[in-house]
């Protein structure tokens, strides 16, 4: 049994925020509504006993993925789009279809999950989940590693551009430098009494 008041409050926020994501004109607002949706969902998950996942959702999603979204939103020239005519024209139809789909799903799901849920066994959710993931689900865990490797390679390959003509330090080359590269010894002619300048060829040449 879930506590009623927090449930309804979080659900209202989640649904409201989802509408906000879909309906916002400004992508920055949409991204912020998405953050609100994630946080509300985290509350719901917490109520249903998924403590670790709720925390992971906030830390990983709100903390990292949404920041990435906002970063891209800011990077790209966002035009405050005027609502296109097609959006307004298809809006009633879209709402109708969405409501029909929702009603169908909900009607079909009635009777699927009735009564109180099962309480999870005592002893932290994090520990139980960790044990499961590192034992029975070790193989999917490895696959998840491959997927993350793929994401890294793909994201870098698609976006990294080496610019020509930028100046920067290369510590590796700095460390590898040898004495011969920097220092040249010159045998100077003996000092002359007349106090002339040193010949031009005897100037120290270093780089």
């Amino acid at each position: 049994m879930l506590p009623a008041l927090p449930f309804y409050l979080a659900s209202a926020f989640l649904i409201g925020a989802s509408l906000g994501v879909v309906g916002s004109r400004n992508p920055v607002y949409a991204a912020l509504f998405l953050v609100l949706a994630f946080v509300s969902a985290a509350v719901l998950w917490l109520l249903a006993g998924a403590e670790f996942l709720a925390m992971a959702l906030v830390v990983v999603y709100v903390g990292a993925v949404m920041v990435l979204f906002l970063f891209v939103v800011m990077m790209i020239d966002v035009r405050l789009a005027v609502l296109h005519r097609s959006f307004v024209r298809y809006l009633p139809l879209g709402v109708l279809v969405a409501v029909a789909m929702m009603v169908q799903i909900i009607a079909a799901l009635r009777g699927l999950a009735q009564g109180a849920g099962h309480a999870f066994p005592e002893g932290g959710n994090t520990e139980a989940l960790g044990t499961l993931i590192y034992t029975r689900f070790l193989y999917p865990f490895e696959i998840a590693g491959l997927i993350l490797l793929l994401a890294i390679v793909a994201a870098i390959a698609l976006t990294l551009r080496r610019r020509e003509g930028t100046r920067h330090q290369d510590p590796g080359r700095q460390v590898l430098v040898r004495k011969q590269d920097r220092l040249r010894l010159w045998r100077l002619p003996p000092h002359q009494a007349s106090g002339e300048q040193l010949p031009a060829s005897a100037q120290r040449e270093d780089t």
Partner: protein
Amino acid sequence: MPLAMSGLILVALAACAVLLLGLFRPQLAYPATQVFLAAAVVVELMTGTSSGHWWGGLFVQDAFAAFIKPVLLVVSMAVFLYGRPMVSRWPQGEYYTLGLLAVAGMLILTSAGHLLTLFLGLELMSLALYAMVALDRDNDMASEAAMKYFMLGGLSSGMLLYGFSLLYGITGTMNLQAMALALGGAGAPGSAVVVALTFALAGTAFKLGVAPFHMWLPDVYEGSPAAVTLFVGAAPKVAALVLLARLVGQGAQANLAIWQPALMVLALVSMAVGSFGALWQQNIKRLLAYSAIAHMGFVLLGALAGSEAGYGASIFYMTSYAVMSTAAFGVVLVVCQMAQTERIADYAGLAERSPWLAAVMMLTMFSLAGVPPLLGFMAKLEVIRAAVGAGAVRLAVLAVLLSVVAAFYYLRVVKVMYMDAPTVALGRSPDVTVPADIKLVLGLNGAMILLLGMMPGHVLHWCQQALRGFLLPS
């Protein structure tokens, strides 16, 4: 750890090795990829027979997987070979790493007896494909194609996953065998099962590129660089069929009454859209895209029977399609290098310019159209036989009629190649030497279409054998 996993591990290691090689010796990335894939084929053939279930069905090795995995690997090798000249300007390490990870995803998917690994394998493959389409970064069309592919692919994954979550809720398990038993039992609520299977099927149909979920396919085929189109159009199609077979065939085998009508509609719409849509196409890649849609409809003809023989016919059809599509895109790639063109009209005079290329293309086109002694004909025959066996006689008749329509546009390509005078593109293009290995494999590929068509017995037997014990005894 199961021995049968060795091939998969080898491919995953190859991805890491090639990534490093690409950093230090980019020119070795391609040969290393081929060596690793060839080694994986050998390993699969040696270890594939050690069947069993591991970790609650997360990894499954059966006759089906033992047949599909070498096919996937060999097709991928041919695809990398044909694509090599075109991708030589791209970052080598990254391209082949992404390709190998996609192959690893397909292998995971093929050996999945659990919704979780089914999903993870599919995503590993799809994510790699999205990135590969966009890898030619300054290509405007390719980025647009990648964006469309990504958006609709992401949506379809979401739908598929929503279906998966409902299936988990209904049955309380994600293991496909246990799920089949639970769904067949009396306790399963009917309407919820219908909704769950609807979403799961919609997602699968997206991945397979079946009408009416085909919107992404022509654009992605046209916009992607030809080497990637070839990749997208060959092995991943086989993998998508595996998804259908595992999910619907194994997981929901007791619910034939729910999904059989849906598959019939999908098959019919797909064959119709593919056959009529291709009639007016001017771009060869777009034509092949519509041809792919039509062929996926034929694949469903076999699958809708829901029997082991039906899936055997489907797998045979899909394997044949992979062979034919690889050959067709192989020729398209060579012409792309030769004349920088993808317009069908520019194929005029190909027969004079390069008789062997035109011959391979003609063979492939006839085979795709289903002209008798060739591979495509045998494949069509098998799926239509399966459909008739399942009682879908009217659908089978419609399939035959639609394949006659489709024959028109395949023959148009042949007519342009052999009858029309060369246009500027092909007539004045500089001589490009086609690497000898590509020539050799393209020739072999064409020969396979001819020889397997005349003697399909062995392959057909393997396909039927691979499906033995695929379904639970009812």
